[in-house]
């Protein structure tokens, strides 16, 4: 091969490789973990910024102003006046009490029954998969649909719960019960808590079941060798090993339960006498029925510092090592 030929061949080779070079550079660039990492985070970041951070920022600006729907141009910055006015409002104070009662009772019930259900599902049962599928149904169904079903079950005329109870009551010769599930303050609160528990139970059960299946069998064997009873095994092995999962599930559930809207809105509209109003139903009433966006946003954000404290506390518990 002539030298000249070799030079032209090199040029040709260069010409062929030139267009490829930027690709290789990009590939090299993407090989760097810090670049690729941020790039992969970007869609999620944009999603969160658009759908969470932006509305959150808007809500903050609303709650610090006297904005009214349709009269946005007249809105003025009023500092913390909305919050001060809420703290002097009997309905809001009642709502805070209701929300705390509702959340505490519902999350406690979900945690206790969810754990029991998870322990049961962890056993070798017949039709295990079918049972697990059925357990998930309340969680999978649209909440509004479930709430409508429960409304019918609590109905003063057609309540299947009252009807069933009365079958037993009549058997022992007592007069039939007339239970006003949604008309008495304490019973109405218990009723909405029961519905929330029913809907949220599968979330606890299935997540805790996953946690249970991650506990090494050797720990139970070692405990048995040490003469541990089933109670000992539960309190000294199962519960400590489940603690991180349990803490996270309780955290998520607390946030969901605090923000619940559908159940109360469909079942009681906050009644009777405001004894079931929650933050979300009150915020809806203020923002959409009286168009007071400022105070509606203030009600929604009132729970934010409380939830932040809770997040901080629960995450600390979850990370604690014994």
């Amino acid at each position: 091969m002539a030298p000249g030929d070799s030079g032209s061949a090199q040029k040709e080779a260069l010409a062929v490789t030139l267009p490829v070079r930027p690709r290789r550079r990009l590939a090299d660039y993407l090989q760097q973990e810090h670049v690729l990492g941020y790039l992969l985070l970007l869609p999620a970041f944009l999603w969160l910024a658009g759908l969470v951070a932006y509305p959150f920022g808007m809500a903050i600006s609303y709650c610090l102003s006297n904005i009214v729907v349709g009269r946005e141009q007249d809105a003025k910055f009023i500092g913390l006046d909305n919050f001060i006015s809420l703290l002097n409002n009997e309905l809001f104070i009642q709502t805070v009490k209701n929300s705390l009662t509702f959340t505490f009772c519902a999350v406690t019930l979900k945690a206790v029954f969810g754990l029991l259900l998870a322990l049961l599902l962890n056993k070798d049962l017949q039709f295990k998969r079918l049972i697990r599928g059925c357990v998930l149904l309340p969680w999978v169904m649209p909440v509004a649909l479930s709430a409508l079903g429960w409304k019918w079950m609590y109905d003063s005329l057609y309540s299947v719960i009252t009807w069933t109870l009365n079958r037993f009551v009549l058997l022992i010769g007592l007069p039939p019960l007339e239970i006003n599930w949604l008309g008495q303050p304490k019973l109405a609160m218990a009723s909405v808590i029961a519905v929330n528990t029913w809907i949220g139970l599968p979330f606890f059960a299935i997540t805790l079941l996953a946690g249970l299946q991650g506990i090494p069998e050797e720990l139970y064997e070692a405990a048995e060798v040490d003469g541990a009873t089933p109670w000992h095994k539960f309190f000294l092995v199962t519960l400590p090993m489940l603690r991180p999962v349990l803490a996270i599930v309780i955290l998520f559930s607390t946030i969901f339960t605090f923000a619940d809207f559908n159940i109360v809105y469909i079942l009681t509209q906050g009644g009777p006498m405001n004894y079931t109003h929650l933050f979300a139903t009150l915020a809806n009433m203020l923002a959409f029925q009286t168009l007071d966006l400022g105070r509606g946003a203030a009600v929604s954000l009132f729970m934010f510092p409380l939830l932040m404290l809770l997040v901080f506390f629960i995450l600390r518990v979850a990370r604690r090592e014994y």
Partner: protein
Amino acid sequence: MATTKRPKAPHGSTTGMTRRRFLATTGAAAGAAGMGWLAGRKPPAYAQTRELTALAMSLFAPPGDARFGELVQEFGKQAGCTARFDTIAVVQVPPKLAAEATQQAGHDIVNVWEAYGYLHRENLEPLDDVMEPINSKFKVFAGPKECFQIDGHWKAAPWYWLAFPQNVYERHWRDAKLEFPKTWAELHAAGKVLKKNGHPIGIQISHSTDANAFWQACLWCYGGKVFEADSKTVAINSPKTKEFLDFAVALYNDCMTPEVLSWDDAGNNRFILSGKGSWTLNPPSIYLTAARAKLPIAKELNHLPCLGGPAGRHNTTYNHGLGLWKFSKNKELAKEFLKFFYAEGKFDSWVTAAGGFCMSPLEKFADNDVWKKDPKLAMLPGEGPFIHSSGWPGKPTQYVAAFDAQFVLPDMIAKVIAGDTPQKAIEWAEATTVKIVKETR
């Protein structure tokens, strides 16, 4: 350079055209079309499309919605535009209106009722040019006029109002050999007997819009009121309210069962349709539902004129109107539609289709045959002179909206039932209402 022969397209294939020929042909066609458009100085068809959109709550009488939809379509064809009529559940309308007002975008024509006309008054286009001729020609009743004439302007075109007559299950009254009541006191006396017979009477004392409406009617009959005529001065703490409250609690204790404390708006409908209840207040939807479903109970249901009290006969209503957003891009088109709709042959055809559920706010159409054909509906148009909007003798303002949204009136009654003294409950209602006036923007 060796050339490769392009393979021939199979016979009959459209791919026989070369790329160059295809580009030349389509380019020429596009150019010609573009030149044609420029020469005609008309925008292409897609840019001319106008769309009129209307939004309303779903009626409890679905054929009424269907007829309104047909009229919207008919207008669309006539005006050379596309037209759409959307209906949503009543509870979804307030947030939808709020969202559209905030975004300054949405439907052109929207269904507003009672205080929502007032609440959105600054975003609603004055309809004086549409409504004045209609008012002169067909005469709008006083109630709807008071509701939608805000600050001297028509902020919505009155569409219909709802009558809330007494709904009775006649057989229970016959069995008890009772006469139908004309006053609240007569109802109380009859209700005692009916309850003993296992057929109590019932109206909501709960967080439901019906509870707000019905009890306010009773309050007016006893001479009480929530606001003075200025719509701002709180007037609920009065001896008349005390008299009303004593009566309401006695009516509950003697004639009703505790289930009324948990009812939603449909609770009294179920109560009557179950055959248990003997009396309630409601629009004629209970009867119409039963008649439409051909239930035997329909024969036993009937309607009676509203009750009276020491201060006369008063009844509640919901005035519904059609508002036009100020930010609508089709204001003139929407106004044309309203003129088209409020005409003989159109408006009355819609009233007929609604089966007597929707009362005409226009005197001209108030004696529609739909109420003459069915004797059980015949009394409904006669309710017109007795109806008032919530907040009467004031107007349904933002304070009234907040008062109703907080269910102050039913809660005041519920508090006494739960054990508070009437005076304490009235003072609570007064303090709450004063706070509403102070804080509502």
